[in-house]
């Protein structure tokens, strides 16, 4: 310690011990008012630094300009949805049925609600499933904004008053009978067509539809007319005129296009 003090004096002693007293002298040279301000300023800065070092969050700046422990707070949040995999551990039977049907991509918790508590405590926390007519239409009620091909119904006219589960097993919701009509899924098109001049033209007149389409709609797609002559069967001037059906000369009218590239056959314009 004594050695250290000696060393310190040797290094910095000239500030206050030497005969010239350089430090004190130069301090005295500063105008009085500045000296007072300097003391006040140094006091304030030191105070600020002490308070700052005392208050600053310890783990700030570990990964970036934030408290590292904030991430721990966030991930300590309890889970409410357990995830599909967990359900299969106990409900193998339901799972097997579901995974073979149309609802194979639907998580159990969509209908049965968040299940984390139930898994934790299966006897006390019971999960319910909606049994009325209210829930299924969230997905299956007809809405123009829904993608075409998604199975939709209009609940007002679809077996009114009957709960959905009376006819459909939700784990394997294939319709009691394969849909006879295209409108079961293509409600938007059916609606549009119903107010058009083509109302009496059946879908199958223009679309050849493989039977499998009704079961695996995206894998087996219906056809579309590929030639101009197909529409020309009714609408070409060469064919015998039927009253009210507009006819055009296929030779001159829109040569490079198949008819449905301009005209929407489900709602052909009147003019």
């Amino acid at each position, binding site marked *: 310690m004594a050695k250290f003090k000696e060393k310190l004096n040797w290094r910095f002693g000239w500030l206050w011990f030497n005969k010239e007293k350089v430090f004190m002298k130069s301090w005295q040279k500063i105008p009085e008012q500045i000296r007072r301000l300097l003391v006040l300023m140094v006091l304030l800065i030191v105070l600020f630094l002490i308070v700052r*070092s*005392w208050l*600053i*969050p*310890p*783990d*700030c700046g*570990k*990964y*970036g*300009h*934030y*408290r*590292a*422990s*904030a*991430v*721990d*707070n*966030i*991930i*300590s*949040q*309890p*889970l*409410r*949805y357990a*995830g*599909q995999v967990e359900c299969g551990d106990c409900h193998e039977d339901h799972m097997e049925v579901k995974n073979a049907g149309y609802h194979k*991509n*639907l*998580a159990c*918790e*969509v209908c049965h*609600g*968040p299940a984390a508590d139930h898994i934790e405590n299966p006897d006390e926390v019971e999960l319910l499933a909606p049994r009325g007519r209210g829930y299924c*239409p*969230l*997905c299956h*009620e*007809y*809405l*123009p*904004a*829904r*993608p075409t091909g*998604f199975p939709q119904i209009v609940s007002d006219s679809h077996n009114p008053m009957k709960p959905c589960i009376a006819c459909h097993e939700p784990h394997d919701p294939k319709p009691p009978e394969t849909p006879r009509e295209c409108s079961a899924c293509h409600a938007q098109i059916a609606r549009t067509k119903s107010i058009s001049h083509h109302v009496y033209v059946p879908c199958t007149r223009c679309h050849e539809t493989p039977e499998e389409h009704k079961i695996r709609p995206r894998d087996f797609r219906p056809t579309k007319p590929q030639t101009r002559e197909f529409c020309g069967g009714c609408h070409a001037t060469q064919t015998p005129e039927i009253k009210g059906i507009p006819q055009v000369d296929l030779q001159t009218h829109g040569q490079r296009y198949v008819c449905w590239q301009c005209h929407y056959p489900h709602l052909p314009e009147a003019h």
Partner: protein
Amino acid sequence: MKKEQRKKLPRRDFLKNVLRSCAGLMLPGFLFAKEAGKKAAALLLDGLYNPAEHSWGMGIDINKCIGCGRCADACKKENNVPNVPFFFRTWVERYRVFENGETLIDSPNGAVNGFENLTDERTIIRSFFVPKLCNHCNNPPCVQVCPVGATFQTVDGVVLVDAEYCIGCRYCIQACPYGARFLHPETRTAEKCTFCYHRVVRGKLPACVEVCPTQARIFGELKKKASPLVRFMRMNKIRVLKPALNTEPRVYYSNLDMEVR
């Protein structure tokens, strides 16, 4: 040569020790703090989850969204978001474009209760649903403006809010171009979608993705080859919301319409 080097090392160590003990005397808070920090960040550090190995993002296929709103509902339940129509971490919008070019947008209660069919005499030319959530921007304006560092982007790309540190100035809410943030009415701090970070670090999907019946939401890695998200981005033409603002979102939309903002 070797001897000199050996001599140097202890001296350097000594200096380090002196500096450390000086610092320790003057600012005792610092040392304790570092220890506390280590303890706090346990789960991440124990090797259960290494953020550096991941890079998260979400894809949204507009053509697949059926507007059931199960995502918005599940999000509220999973994250205890107040069940009132003013606060949403995610929501679904419905767009209806009419023949005269007019566009009507709605999102009743954020689609938590789904959508009802609205009768309108006019002919709809196109109509679709758009799920919205925090875009977890790579260039996040909310993080830029937070005065205290209470919102930040993690190494794996998720933008989070430190509710304990947030002072509730709401500058981040103003800076978010997507309206993804809100002030939690009870905690009075900013809140938003976390990509369900508490689920993701445990290897689970975000609640909204978990319950989506049609796989319209695709969550996954952006930088791994075998990732549903990477496949989605390979197979589709992709757009982000408000690209002109250069926020570089990590939420990617396919088949996005020009009317969507």
